Every structure is written in C-alpha cells, then in structure tokens.
C-alpha cells in the first residue's frame, strides 16, 4: 500500500497535528470544525463555544473587516475556485497567510470550505531583514564602485595630463641631441643623456599607470593576430641582454618541441616577457642564471622563466600579482623606480588572453614564473 491509501484512517491525527490553523465552515459561514492549532492560539475558546458559531464570532472581527474573508468564502462557494492566498497583518506586527479551498461533495456541490491560516511573522521578519541587508549591501557596493571608478578616472587623467609636459621636455632633449639648439660639449651631452633616459623611465611609469587603470576599468584592448611566442621571447631577450650583461647573468632560451602559433596581441605579450624578465634580472644576484623555457602543450603554449635569485616567500606568492605590491610592508623602504605594477599588468594581459599566470618559488633558491597562452 502506497500513497494516500497508506494513511487512510489517520486523517484526523494528521489534521490535528498540522501546525497551521484549519477551520471548516458551511454555506452559512458557520464553523463545523477547527483543528487543535486553532484552540492552541485561541486559549479562551472551547469547542462548544466554537462549533456552530458564525465565523465572525470565532475569529477577530477586525480580521473579517480587513480581509473581507466572508466575501471571499462566498466567492469560493459560488465559483468552486480556490482562493489562493493573501497576506494579513495583525496588530502588534504579526503576519498571517491564509487560503480558502472548496470541499466538493459528489456532483460538484460545494457544501463546505476549508480555511488555512499560517503565522508567517518570523518568515516575514527574516524576509524584511534580508531585503534590508540586500539594499545595504547594494548601496555599499555602489559606493565602493563609485570610489573605485573615481580612482581609476584619477589615474587615467593624471597619466594623460603628464603626457604633455613629458612631450615638451622630450622635444627639447631631442632638439639638443640633434644639435638644433647649438653644439653641446661632452659634459652637456652626457647630462642630456641622463635626462633622456630618466624621461624614458618616466614615460614607462606613466604607461604602466595607464595600463593599470585600463585593466581596472576593463578597457585594456587585445588586438589579436597570429603570433610566435618564441620570436617575441628572442626579441625581448635581445633587448634586455645588456641589462643582464651588466650583472654578468647567464640567460638562456629553450624551445621544447615545434611551437604552435597562437592568436594574441604581440605588443602586449612582449610587455609580459619584458615585465617578467626585468624582474628576474633585478631579483637575481650578479652571475646568477635565468632560463626561459617555452613548451608546446596540447592546449597551451607554456612559458617558464626560471631564475636562481632571491625568491618569493610563500605568503607573498599570490599577493605579488596584486597592484602596488612591492615586496615589503613599508612604503619608505621600497626600492625606487617601481610602483609594483609590472606583475599586475602581466597578469591582466595573460588573463585577457584567457591564460593563467603563477609563481613557484622558494626563498633563497629562486623563482619560476609560469604563464600559459591557450592555442585557440
């Protein structure tokens, strides 16, 4: 025996045990039955005060007034369509939910209806609390977003504003270098060169700031074309070779297997190599070793940049990819010439290519920075 058959004969116990109020009335709106929960809620009332009484004397009059429940019951009797429920507010902040169902006897003749009432005060309170928290959260998020946008906007404006003075300075440096402003002596020429390289550095910092604000506002555009990662690596290694040479570091490039071309932004991937290799050179001692290994994998081209430099502490390994992270807590002891943007930009670029970037490292032994670029 399964389903409703198995509980036939227990209807009474089941109805009595239901934790909602159940009242059955006839066409005259006289009460035929009220379950245990009704008496539990209306302690003063005994069965003999309730049965045969009109509904309006059994439930509080204001309730009738407010809900027009009597009209609704008549409507159910008339149409045979259940009234599917409404919420009702009691004085004192109580909330009830009620439904009215027709009880058909034989040939669609409705002689009784059953009224279910449920206390939903707690539920309503929780719902309101939830809605409140949601609104608060949403406001906080909006505020945060606005602050963040303002900050990005500021960085963007600041770096754009810096471009004009840099251009003016750069123009005069070039005019000096070209001899357009008269011949320079050896000393002047040397000093102009220092100014020139410092301006170049400043331009890179400004570009990094702009890239960071582009990454934050998701305005970093990737212009894809077919690129050869090994060619990019070679080009960057050529350019940075002089820097590594100054520290007498041994730099090598290993290509494992024939490499697939990938769809990517050549200029941006060059930037990734540049940032990672500049770091490797910077954080590897004199006469240290830096190996670039590019490997063809089933779905990716994988680049590892392995150095035997100072390494990255475990606790910092995820933080180093955050912007403005420069290795130690104090902003006064940080190394000059860095804003802690290189790795954040590299991460942003790799992720914009749907690749991954991470570091494996042990303090004192060296670091391996790895990034993957998907083939398709």
């Amino acid at each position, binding site marked *: 025996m399964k389903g409703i058959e198995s509980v036939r004969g227990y209807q009474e116990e089941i109805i009595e045990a239901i934790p909602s109020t159940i009242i059955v009335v006839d066409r005259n709106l006289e009460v035929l039955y009220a379950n245990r929960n009704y008496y539990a809620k209306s302690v003063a009332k005994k069965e003999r005060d309730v049965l045969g009484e009109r509904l309006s004397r059994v439930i509080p009059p204001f309730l009738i007034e407010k809900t027009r429940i009597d009209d609704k019951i008549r409507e159910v009797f008339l149409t045979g369509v259940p009234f599917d429920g409404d919420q009702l507010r009691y004085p004192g902040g109580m909330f009830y939910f009620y439904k009215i169902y027709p009880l058909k006897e034989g040939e669609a003749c409705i002689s009784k209806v059953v009224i279910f009432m449920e206390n939903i005060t707690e539920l309503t309170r929780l719902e309101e609390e939830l809605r409140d928290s949601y609104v608060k959260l949403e406001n906080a998020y909006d505020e945060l977003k606005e602050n963040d946008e303002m900050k990005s906007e500021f960085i963007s404006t600041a770096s754009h504003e810096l471009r004009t003075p840099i*251009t003016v300075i750069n*123009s005069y440096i070039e005019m000096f270098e070209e001899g357009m402003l008269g011949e320079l002596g050896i000393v002047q020429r040397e000093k102009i060169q220092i100014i020139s390289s410092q301006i170049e550095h400043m331009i890179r910092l400004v570009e990094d700031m702009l890239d960071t604000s582009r990454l934050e506002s998701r305005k970093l555009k990737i212009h894809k074309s077919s690129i050869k990662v090994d060619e990019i690596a070679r080009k960057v290694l050529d350019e940075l070779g002089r820097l590594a040479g100054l520290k007498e570091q041994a730099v090598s490039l290993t290509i494992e297997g024939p490499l697939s071309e990938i769809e990517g932004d050549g200029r941006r991937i060059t930037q990734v190599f540049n940032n990672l290799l500049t770091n490797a050179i910077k954080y590897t001692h004199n006469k240290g070793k830096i190996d670039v290994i590019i490997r063809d994998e089933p779905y990716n081209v994988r680049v590892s940049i392995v150095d035997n430099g100072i390494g990255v502490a475990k606790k910092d390994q995820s933080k180093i990819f955050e912007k403005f992270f420069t290795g130690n807590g104090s902003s006064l002891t940080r190394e000059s010439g860095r804003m802690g943007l290189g790795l954040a930009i590299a991460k942003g670029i790799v992720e914009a290519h749907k690749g991954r970037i991470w570091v494996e490292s042990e303090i004192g032994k060296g670091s391996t920075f790895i990034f993957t670029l998907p083939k398709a």
Partner: protein
Amino acid sequence: MITVSSVAGNAGEQCDDLRGDMKLLVVDDAPEMLKAFRDILEAHGCEVYEAENGEEALTKYADMKPDVVLMDILMPRLDGISATKRIIQDDPLAKIIVISAVGKSGLEKECLVAGAKEFIVKPFKVKELLNSIDMLVKG
C-alpha cells in the same frame, strides 16, 4: 602609421629645402607645448601660427590658410575633433594631424573619420612628427 624614413646628413639643412616657407598652425591649450612646437618648426624653416583652442583654430585657419595643422584634442571651448570636422567642412583638402595625449584606439578612428590625415600620440619623437608633416605635404 607612417614609417620613419632616415634623414641623412644634417637633419636641419635637408629639411629646410622641403619645409621652407611652409605655414603651420599649431593648436594646443598648453602654452609650453605651443612654444616647443614653434621652436621645433621654426628651426626647420616653417612659419608658425598658434591657437589655444578649437574656436581660435577656426579663425586662424580661415585667416592664414596654413599648409598643415597640428591639433590637440582636449581643449577648452571647442575640442580638437569638432574643430577638425568644421575645418574640413570649409576646406575638404585641409591637412590636419591630430596630436593626442589620449591613446585610445577608438579615438584614432574617430579623428580619421572627422577628416584628420594622421593621429600621433604624445609623447612623440620630433623626427616622427617632422616625417609625418613631410609625407602629408608631399602626398
């Protein structure tokens, strides 16, 4: 983008031949930038006129009929793109090079659509600027 062609020997001397008597209108709201443009261009034998915003550029263009205009974008009163459009309206053959502090890719297209012949992002190389001017005048 125009490739940088090599200018052999004394840069100043050779360029004088090409740019002698050339009239240029430079439009920028930064006076120092205007001064730098003037110094660069006068050293190459150009006649230089200045405008501090797009509106002034319109009047100066009509008065002086310059061979080439160097136009900034972000300026008070009238921006460089609108000014470019208005100049091209009156003189479809106007040769305008937009020189922007903003390097957004959409912006370059917008400038070219407005009628600019070239888009250069600050900071630029003086040689690159001079080459762009040469190519425009020759073409």
